[in-house]
């Protein structure tokens, strides 16, 4: 059984902002899945949906099976128990994701006290251990977030995510706000820790090169959909979908911030989720679009062994 099994997940904000549209993804225990896509394609929405953390204005449908249990239909009590202990999240931008008025040691200890009913001294010992794991001195437990550098804060977030030995960690652009050298350190740290402890990882980034380096499998997201999914190297080196190709061409080198918003060689802006183009949502920007693309929306289908793509050119449904 897959550890995480997302089935036909859709998320709509308000009445018309379709941020995630019919996503199917699976992650096996201990494996690493990367999700890439431009800003606004729905990556964070997908990540937050996994633990039902979206604002009340978001309506969800489909299934999110975590260890066989559907997160979307769980009772509140069960959901709280699953949060952090079953799956934890490393958020984008640790400055704002940590509480400025609490010591970082207390923030790391909090899930231990909630989920493990740990005694304060036991929690304190565990916090020391966790800080060591992420390469921070134990004494930093008494520091406040503003006393740490960006990289150190992200290490704190990682220590916090590991606190309850979850089976899955979701990392939503864990290195976006950091400079390139620190980015590489943090990525290596995450990769090493999840591998050592056999934790499954869903890593979200706009940077395909980073993901190809870290993950077993890669999914490419466009306008709320998965348009390509397959083994990491195959998606990066031999993308099937025209958007996947544009994305991998855009990131020849890890952590190039200039290509964040406009992948190289790809004119135009990503579509507004409230007013999506007809047919294949990529067709207004697609360099190889056919006439049918404006009316036909190709499903995600096998294009090579274990490698799926949603394009009329790869699914063989070409007229």
């Amino acid at each position: 059984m897959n550890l995480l099994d997302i089935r036909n997940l859709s998320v709509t904000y308000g009445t018309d902002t379709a941020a995630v549209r019919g996503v199917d993804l699976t992650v096996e225990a201990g494996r690493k899945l990367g999700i890439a896509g431009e800003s606004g394609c729905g990556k964070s929405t997908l990540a937050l949906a996994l633990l039902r953390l979206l604002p009340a204005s978001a309506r969800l449908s489909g299934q999110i099976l975590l260890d066989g249990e559907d997160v979307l239909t769980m009772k509140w009590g069960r959901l709280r128990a699953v949060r952090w202990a079953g799956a934890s999240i490393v958020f984008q931008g640790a400055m704002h994701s940590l509480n400025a008025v609490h010591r970082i040691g207390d923030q790391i200890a909090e899930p231990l006290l909630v989920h493990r009913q740990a005694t304060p001294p036991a929690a304190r010992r565990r916090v020391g251990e966790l800080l060591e794991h992420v390469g921070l001195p134990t004494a930093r437990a008494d520091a406040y977030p503003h006393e740490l550098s960006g990289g150190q804060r992200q290490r704190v977030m990682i220590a916090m995510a590991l606190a309850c030995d979850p089976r899955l960690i979701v990392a939503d652009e864990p290195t976006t706000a950091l400079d390139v050298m620190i980015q590489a350190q943090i990525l290596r740290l995450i990769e090493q820790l999840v591998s050592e402890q056999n934790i499954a990882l869903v890593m979200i980034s706009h940077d395909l090169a980073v993901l190809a380096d870290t993950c077993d499998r890669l999914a490419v997201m466009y306008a709320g959909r998965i348009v390509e999914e397959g083994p990491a190297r195959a998606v990066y080196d031999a993308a099937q979908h025209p958007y996947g190709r544009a994305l991998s061409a855009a990131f020849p080198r890890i952590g190039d911030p200039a290509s964040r918003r406009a992948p190289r060689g790809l004119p135009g802006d990503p579509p507004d989720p409230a007013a999506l183009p007809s047919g294949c949502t990529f067709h207004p920007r697609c360099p190889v679009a056919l006439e049918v693309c404006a009316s036909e929306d190709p499903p995600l289908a096998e294009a090579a062994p274990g490698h799926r793509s949603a394009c009329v050119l790869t699914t063989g449904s070409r007229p």
Partner: protein
Amino acid sequence: MTTASASAGAVVERSGTATAYPRYLAGKLGGAAVSLFAVLVTSFFLFRIIPGDPVKAMTQGVPTSAEQLATLRRQFGLDLPLWQQFTDYCAKALTGDLGMSYQFRAPVGELVAQKLPATLLLTGVAVVIYSALGLWLGTRSAWRHGGLGDRLNTGIALTLWSVPSFWLGLLLIIVFSVGIGPVPGMFPTGGMESGDETGLAYVIDVAHHMVLPVLTLVAVGYAQTLLVMRASLLDEMGGDYLTTARAKGLRDDLVRRRHAVPNALLPTITMIFINLGHVAAGSILVETVFSWPGLGGLFYQALSVPDLPLVQGLFVVFAGAMILMNLLADLLYPLLDPRVGR
């Protein structure tokens, strides 16, 4: 506030040094001293340019000869050059000597000391109650903002806020002191004590006298705290750290109490201390309506003469209380917000 991207490049930690708090402290104390000096200057010159001869005002209605007026002038130092009056005034004020009241023929300091406890008791209790009430209701309102409870809450608070306090006080006196229809007169119409109680009975008697004036002050006063707390909690509610707290599996009330409220309190606390600063001035209207023997009533009496040294002294006392409370807020703030003064 530093943004994540701005601080991202820093590899070295920028923890505060051990000398940061003393320096912060010295800065705030210096600021308070400057403010106090400004108050003295203002009070001195403000009251010198008010037209009207204070000695004439003092002797109004009493036939006084020119020599007697001159003697009085000399007695109050009004014949000296202005700058000398000013230096004398400052030197005395700093030793707690705020001059003699024309009206009561008693030192202003003594009069203030007599009336201060009653005012501190009444307004102090009221401010503590309405701050707590405002914080509590403001928190509830923001957490379920837009709902019926929120709209009811803010609607009632705003309505009460716009009610004149003397009018509400009189209304309460009519209903609960005099009694109306089936409602018997339950509370005294005014004053602070009945005069013949001692010990515990005295405490209960004073509390009994306080009910209506406190109720009046709370009713017209809590809206401000409510609205500030509501606004600052609403600001916090989009915060990513709350998503983190929820993701950790905390119950909703813990997310609110442990994470959202401590952050939202920071802007509110300054305002609560400003309100505490107003405590000394009391409420002239409410003290007058309830014949409360406090500074507000004294100020009213001083103004109606006008009793220049008393008005001036009270002005300094009221402003000094504001400065003191602001200073306390500044000193307390670093304990609540680790980003300040460390």
